[in-house]
């Protein structure tokens, strides 16, 4: 089992190498094509004379030729050490390390919540197919899906933060967090409720539709009829024979959605002032900070690969056939 997982991980990582290289070259080319460099971006905010601009270009290595800069950049990418970010003036890996946990927590919670809510509601809709409840759930899901996530976020902001004052307006923790691990965790959770809910609700419809469709399909399958013929209790048939196989497409979609969710978190992090990877990415692009952009993109790529790996493992658990075929048994 361990060697199999190990092999799967190794294969996935190897597959990722060309992807990462292509992405890295693409970033460099795109940023080169755009007018202006990191020094221009910086001076737009501070002003400065010719000597100042020249000194910064020299210090940040922007006075070197295109080829030299490209080679230095690719070397940094290959070595997985992106050097110093000019926008935040610290090593790129430190900058990402500071922001990644928040984004992981927010995204992880949002993914699980949206999938859980989506599957449960989708299941309920499937069991009430064609009735009022089915229609209601479907419409609500679609409306939420059609809503831009920043708008939903702003609605929450106006209603729940400014008017009702139920939730804090920004950040991931209070300025002076309460003592004790549990109290601190609750403080963070309280801050993350709205960003997570915003992300989860907008992505929920997808899972809802998938689950509903898959359950209706499986409900009509032979093994369900066989189970009914054997006189199994209705609840057990729904759980074991309809819902479990219907979860497969949902799990597949979880993996595919991670990238989208990372993009969505940029917007939601901005609305709720969450100091995560998304707001860092925004700053990096705005400041033309090539090393930082490359680092964040790579972190995102690795994240998507890891999530898809987890999805594969979950697959093996949900669908024994997958595990069997991979372990080489007939």
């Amino acid at each position: 089992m361990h060697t199999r997982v190990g092999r799967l991980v190794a294969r996935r990582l190897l597959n990722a190498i060309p992807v990462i290289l292509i992405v890295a070259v693409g970033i460099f080319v795109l940023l080169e094509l755009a007018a202006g460099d990191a020094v221009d971006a910086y001076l737009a905010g501070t002003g400065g004379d010719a000597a100042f601009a020249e000194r910064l270009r020299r210090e940040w290595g922007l006075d070197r030729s295109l080829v030299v800069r490209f080679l230095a950049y690719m070397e940094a990418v290959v070595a997985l050490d992106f050097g110093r970010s000019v926008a935040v003036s610290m090593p790129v890996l430190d900058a990402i390390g500071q922001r990644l946990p928040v984004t992981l927590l927010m995204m992880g919670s949002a993914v699980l919540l949206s999938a859980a809510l989506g599957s449960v509601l989708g299941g309920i809709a499937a069991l009430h197919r064609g009735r009022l409840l089915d229609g209601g759930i479907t419409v609500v899901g679609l409306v939420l899906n059609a809503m831009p996530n920043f708008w939903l976020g702003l609605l929450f902001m106006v209603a729940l933060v400014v008017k009702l004052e139920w939730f804090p307006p920004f950040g991931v923790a209070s300025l002076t967090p309460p003592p004790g691990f549990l109290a601190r965790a609750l403080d963070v959770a309280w801050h993350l409720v709205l960003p997570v809910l915003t992300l989860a609700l907008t992505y929920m419809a997808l899972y809802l539709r998938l689950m509903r469709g898959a359950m209706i399909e499986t409900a009509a399958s032979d093994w369900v009829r066989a189970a009914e013929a054997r006189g199994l209790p209705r609840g057990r048939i729904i759980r074991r024979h309809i819902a479990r196989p219907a979860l497969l497409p949902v799990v597949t979609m979880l993996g595919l959605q991670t990238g989208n969710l990372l993009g969505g978190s940029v917007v939601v992090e901005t609305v709720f002032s969450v100091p995560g990877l998304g707001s860092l990415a925004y700053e990096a692009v705005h400041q033309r900070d090539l090393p930082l952009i490359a680092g964040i993109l790579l972190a995102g790529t690795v994240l998507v690969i890891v999530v898809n790996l987890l999805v594969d493992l979950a697959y093996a658990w949900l669908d024994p056939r997958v595990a069997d075929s991979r372990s080489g048994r007939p």
Partner: protein
Amino acid sequence: MTHPELSRRALLKSGSALSLAAIAGLPAAAAAQKVRTGGTLVVAADGEPRNLNPAIVASNGVFFVASKVIEPLAEMDYETGLRPLLATAWEGAPDGLSYTVRLRPNVRWHDGTPFTAGDVAFSAMEVWKPLQNLGQVVFAHLEAVETPDELTAIFRFSEPTPAQLIENAMPALTSVLPRHLYAGTDIANNPHNNSPVGTGPFRFAEHRPGEYYRLVRSSDYWNVGLPHLDEIVYRVLPDAGAKAAALETGDIHLTAFSAVPLYELERLDAIDGLTVYTTGYEGITYQLVLEINHRRPELADVRVRRAMAMAIDPAFIVDTIFLGYGATASTGPIPRVAAEFYSEDKPLVTFDPAAAEALLDEAGYPRRADGTRFTLRLRPAPWFEQTRATGDYVRQALQAVGIRVEIVTADSAGHTTAVYTDHDFDIAIGSPVYRNDPAISTTILFQGGLPAGVPFSNQYGYDEPAMNEVIAAAAHEIDREKRIALYAEFQRIAAEQLPIINLVEFTFTTVASDRVKGVSSNPRWATSSWADVWLES
């Protein structure tokens, strides 16, 4: 129209005798009795400067945080013009070749080391002159700083440098660094650039990237009894909506630098417990300017430039784009608030589209069959909501007189490169800053022969001998009155030739909880030390 009643109401509502007194020019002593010591002031910060060292990067974003930690020699003051901080007295030699500064005794750095003239000499020679973003202006001819004793610094210049300029530059360009922490290091990359050590009322405590900066009271500040606050926390809130919401919920006490969108101001001002201030920024007046590329033959003709000035109504920009907050129509490169230099003696352009059309006809650009005379590409600076909106208005205004305008947008980096390096524009909306003396960052917009790539400078292809001569003469004129006269001439030439068109002068707004006292108490308030700011319980 501006709203005088608005600012008056704001002042009355704040109930702060301190700020009333400051603006009315009355002694503030009467208000001092109920001052409360203690409390944490929470303010919103737009972003996190990559370098927090104001001696290297003299910019508003840096000063907003760092000016509470690191002090300059002197600060601007509503009553006296210049208030002593680290310097107690200053005097220029009659020949303009030396400038003597007496320093404050019994000042300590936050790490306990005594502050001496050596720190000033080091800052001037090793930082302000070679490294500072604006250092070439004032310190170009600085040769040495002598320190005959611990508390005297004598600046020696190779060419006459006006004492007036040095004094006007003191608040922004003379932040003093601790020599013992910087000498012998790579100053531009010294770690203290991001955890500053200074002599100011607050010491730097921590920075959590993406979250906040925290400053705490310095227990042995030289001005005994100050500061009033225990802590200042800058919450990083890039989103304007989040800032407005946080003000409403009371999670932050103050936003500065127009962090809240103008259209929110009226609503916020109407909320009990919040006040909108439009004062406290006079020392950093921004100018909304139509930048013109003289390389276009049409635009090299002064008649066309004058016609464009006539076609644009600054009052419309003030009323509709700035909603009356902190903006006035401009008459030239030196704003009215700079009373020392402002000159009335110059030709003025008045809004008159019909006359503009006549002038364009006369210049040889009649309306063609399709109703247009020629087409210009306009690049509005992307950094302020108002620069973008003014771009839209200028487009409409010029099209009304037959000049077709295409708007080209870019992000900050793209915009500065296009305008100031590649000269890839016909007209642009820019926002240069008047920094208390024309020589610091204003004449550079008119001086010819500058290298490409310097942002916020004359990259317009305008090179006029008479203008260049006046600018050069003023840079070396030691006599105050003569220097002022030269700048009057500078304004006259600028008004006559209109190399660029100054549209509007604007300052920023501060929105603060009424609990915050001492807001806008000097002309550089947001970028000053806040030693006298206090928080009502």
